[in-house]
């Protein structure tokens, strides 16, 4: 049970971190693009 929980939490944490970085990447790419246009 404990092993299950550790793995599920690990997978969930990795997915959250991946999602956060994808959001940041597109956010900052847009920013760079905007700065380039300005």
């Amino acid at each position: 049970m404990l092993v299950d929980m550790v793995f599920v939490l690990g997978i969930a944490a990795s997915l959250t971190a991946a999602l956060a970085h994808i959001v940041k990447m597109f956010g900052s790419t847009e920013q760079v693009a905007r700065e380039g246009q300005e």
Partner: protein
Amino acid sequence: MQTLGQVLVAISFVLTALIVLLSLRAALSSKAGPAFSLSHGTFAIAYLNLAASLVLAYSFVSHDFSNRYVASYSDSSMPAVYLLTAFWAGEKGALMFWVLVLSGLLVSLEHYFRGLFAQASGHLPSFSIKRYFNVARAVGLVALLFFEFLMVFASHPFETFLTSEGPQDGAGMNPLLQNPLMAVHPPFQLAGFVAYTIPYAFSVAALVVGDLSDLWVRIARRFSLLAWSLLTAGLIIGGLWAYVELGWGGFWGWDPVENGALLPWLTGTALLHSMAVEVRRSALRRLNHILMHLTFILTIFATFLTRSQLISSLHAFANSVLTPYFLYYMGFLVMLAIVLIAWRWKALCPKQRIGSLFTREALVVVNNVAFLLMLFIVLWGTLLPRLSESPAVQSALNKALAGFNAVFSGEFTRLEGPISVGPEWFNRVTAPVGLFILALTAFGPLVPYGEGGRRAVNRAILKTALYSATATIGVLACFAVLRGLQTNGTLDLSFGHFSLEHLYAILGVFLATWVAVVAARDFVISVAARRAVTRLSRLRTFCTLLRDNPRRYGGHLVHIGVALCFMSFAGSAAKQEKKDVLIGVGQSIGLGHIDLTLLSTYEACEGSGRYCASVSEVLAWPKGQSLPDSVLKKLEGVPGVVEVRQMSPPWVGLRFSSPKRALEYLAETYARVVLGRDFILVNAEEGQLHLAPAAPEALRLQPRNFHRLLEQLHNLEAWFGPGNVTIQTRRGDPLVVLTFQNKDLFEAFRRGLTQGTDEGVALLVLDPSDRNVIRVIPSGIGTVLRPEVRFYTKFENPTTEVDIWSHLFFDLYVAAAPASGTNTVSVTAMINPLMTWLWAGSFLLVFVGLLLSLSPTPKSAGYELAMKGVAEMQKGQQTCS
């Protein structure tokens, strides 16, 4: 769960492809473009791959046999450690592991560049660094993309059974891989291969961007050292596994896959040396790029050899569909290397030419040529047997041989079939090259960069060589005396046959001593010089030296590790004793200065029932050494004993007052020591003992072993008379009935099986010449080795588990397989000299390498070095004509 894994791998693949395109667009753009916004993409890929790896690991841990890979490589009875090992036991998991490690390394690359960018931005326009970085990232991600592509389209780790939810239980893992060393060998080996991607990415980036400075070397050096250390650890752990698991007594069999893994190690070692020259002297720039590309291609070639089954190999654990993909990828990499290096060939001219052969840089070139020669030998020996299977190659080789014979009056015979190249060929051909490299390792560090100080250097070389020669003569003299010292106290110094191996061994000892003397000399001189100023203790001064100049002094420690390894090779070449004999319980064989006596064989099963084993107990006792008095005194306390007499060690004679007492003692003790181990007493009445085997599971797996148990009982008829003890068995029922005519004998056996105390006896027999005497081998003396043959419930072929007694100067290596149906055991015993030196030397290599590449302190120094490279980068084009 498997769907989640499939989705994660797919998203990671698409995202990687996207970031590659964005990085290349940014690199090709005339504007600076985004540098670090894309780094979030690398982080996201790493997290996605981590999540996918966790899903796969969880599938193993939770026994989710709906996953084909999990069902093929694990079963529900495997312990947790092997469930995790199963992760990388097969091709699909190895791909997942490769992708996980590479994405982790790319994250560390992003961190590194962020730090470097923060330092560099104040000094020069960030444009060139950003462009450089975008190309390096794209190269790293393309390497990642290739393996993700293989996962998605060719060998998916989350593939499920289409028509069902999978089997009830998995097929289990190959027993050879169920060894703790196999839990660490593949990760180190794979991580070593993967880690070369990072320095390779820098090399490609430098060539693409046209940065002809030493920046890439300054940055890539640390990553190369990390990759080299991991690869070294992988090779050594693999060797150790072969040594303890395969039972042939060696650690390196020149197996094609071992050779494949050695190839990038050879070029990687050469690369480490020439990178140092480029940083110091801005020379060998072309060589470094060539070696870097070659090393990276060879890591892919090694993986290809492992997975392709191109050459039949010990490592052929998988039947792969990946062969064509690897061939295309290697072809692409070779083309890329040729195009890039040819494109920048002129611009990569050396900034400083090598003036003389007697300089460090020239010696490094010679060293690297020797490494490349070794590479060629290993590659040739690995591929030739396979290539020579082709009639066209045979015909070409025959023409070449005929031509050679005609011109040089040679006597080469025509090839009639494929050439077979064995370990002897490799040992014979690589030994001189290895010794040559060792000689360079010895005096190379004494020769300075550039010219100058020739006389002082000559003096240092001569002095250290003399010290080493003296030490070698001393060591060899001691060895000869120890070897020739007879048990009767006389000395026999006759050498016997002197072979080429002996010459190599003596040279090896001399050169390895020289390497260690040169390294120790530099430590002694440097510690003394620093202590004169700091007044710190010697140990603290030594530590500060390592901290302040890790490359120089760490390099010395690595060389000492190499010296230890070569000492071990020399020991093996000079003297390795081996015996391969069939012996019965109580019989002995002499091996060097040790007597080996077979004490017993018995069956035992592992708790969870994964396997049962036939275990042989072998006692190692120094030849001729008397037993300690305390052991003899203890035996004097045995009831009825009138005299305890030391016989041929480790045997002791117990004289009883009458043959009747002797037989009673023999019956009771034999019942306790031997019968009590192999059988359980089921019933004892009316002069009959009903015995059932103690390990019935073992007999279910190997029914023929029941005959061996019966064979052991036949002594009883000889000792107690054929009429007194009758042995009966029933067909189809492994039950043994002993019927006794003599009531006292029956009682003695019953007592032995049900009660009694341990009298410290491991084995006992009736003396054939004197029926008053029982010969015993006391327990608790010498070293008892327990080699096994294991029979796994899910695998047909048995595996050998050797037992090794490791000593500072030798290993006693024993493998034993009980002969089927008889009471004899086939024993293979060896004395392997100086094996612990090999493991100690290898540990030093890996430990220092990892310490230098992973130590956090030189981080700022690393940036500083890189900054020097950035400054070089600005003037790079100008200084190179």
